[in-house]
């Protein structure tokens, strides 16, 4: 697993109260009970923690953590 994935996992567990055992690359935000506002907040947290900006349009397209990690890595996120 990539360092960016570990960072994303940390954000989900610490800031959104997601159970660590539920987090996997295949998990969708819906599986994790995160709604559209959580996704906005997740994008904000990713910006704070990883220094890359996810636009609202990009955030809307994200379904799984695999999509998310891929997008963050493409944007040059350094964990």
């Amino acid at each position, binding site marked *: 697993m990539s360092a960016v994935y570990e960072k994303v996992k940390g954000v989900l567990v610490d*800031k959104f109260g997601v159970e660590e055992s539920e987090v996997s690359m295949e998990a969708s935000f819906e599986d994790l009970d995160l*709604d*559209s*506002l959580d996704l*906005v*907040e997740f*994008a*904000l947290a990713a910006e704070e923690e990883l220094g890359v900006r996810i636009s*609202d349009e990009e*955030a809307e397209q994200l379904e799984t953590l695999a999509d998310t990690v891929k997008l963050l890595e493409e944007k040059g996120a350094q964990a």
Partner: protein
Amino acid sequence: MTSVLKALGVAVPSRVVTNHDLAETLDTSDEWVRTRTGIVERRIAEPGVATADLAVEAGAEALKRAEVDVDAVILATCTADRTIPGVGPEVASRLGLGPVPALDVNAACAGFVYALSVASGLIASGVADGVLVVGAETMSRVTDFGDRATAVLFGDGAGAVVLARGEPGEPGEVGPFDLGSDGEGADLLEVPGGGSRRPLDAAALAEGAQYLKMDGREVYRQAIRRMVASSEAVLAKAGLTAGDVDRLVGHQANARILEAVADRLGIGEERRFLNVARYGNTSAASIPLALADAELAAGEQVLLTAFGAGMSWGSTLLRWPDLSVA
């Protein structure tokens, strides 16, 4: 020399509209609204009731409790009774204050914090000794009750305080202030029609340009970021940290925004105040309505922070005085 809060008064329409009421005509549900916003019900003014009417009611209560003379009025609103003139002069006259200076401040949801700073400026410059600061809104008049994204969010109400000249360290001391704006976000939250850019002709009315439009996600994101930064800035100006704050009373737009702001500031649940459940987002009226409900104790250090259309934001500190708010 500084400005000190002497009295508080509030007024809300008696008509309560619940999420269930709105769900009868809108594709939404109580559960959806509660989980996304924390709002359970809001007050809606009866037809014929205008912003000035709520402002006069709240202002009269504050004046009755204030044991000081008031010689200026600042009215924070983005839902004025009419385009011209402002609401302030009418409110001053109806309250029997005579020919005092009176003006409106339109900084939308940040209006009350902006108005406090304007009032403090009038006191500091010697223009006024006592200022009635009112935040009053009839948001229902610019709400499209057919738009489920915004219809559930807003409510009507008013709150007023009296600020007077005082000494630093005195109970009720207000300040310092941190204020800011970003006009690049003007169209993220707007009523496009009815001004000089888009007069309300038949085409504009057919489009619903008289109603409030919002890019909810971007506003949500910016609200969190700006209120955190502004709160940190005002605390730094005062030489304080978030640990010195006894109570965070933020603009009541959305419970989740305020939770996110408080989390980032490190202000725990017991030090946050929320009453968005009762009133929804009452824009410039929300902070005084929250102060009235927060059961603050004399001497408590209160952090006020707000964000709204403009985009505009502002924060200040208030050392709660010993006063009755019942």
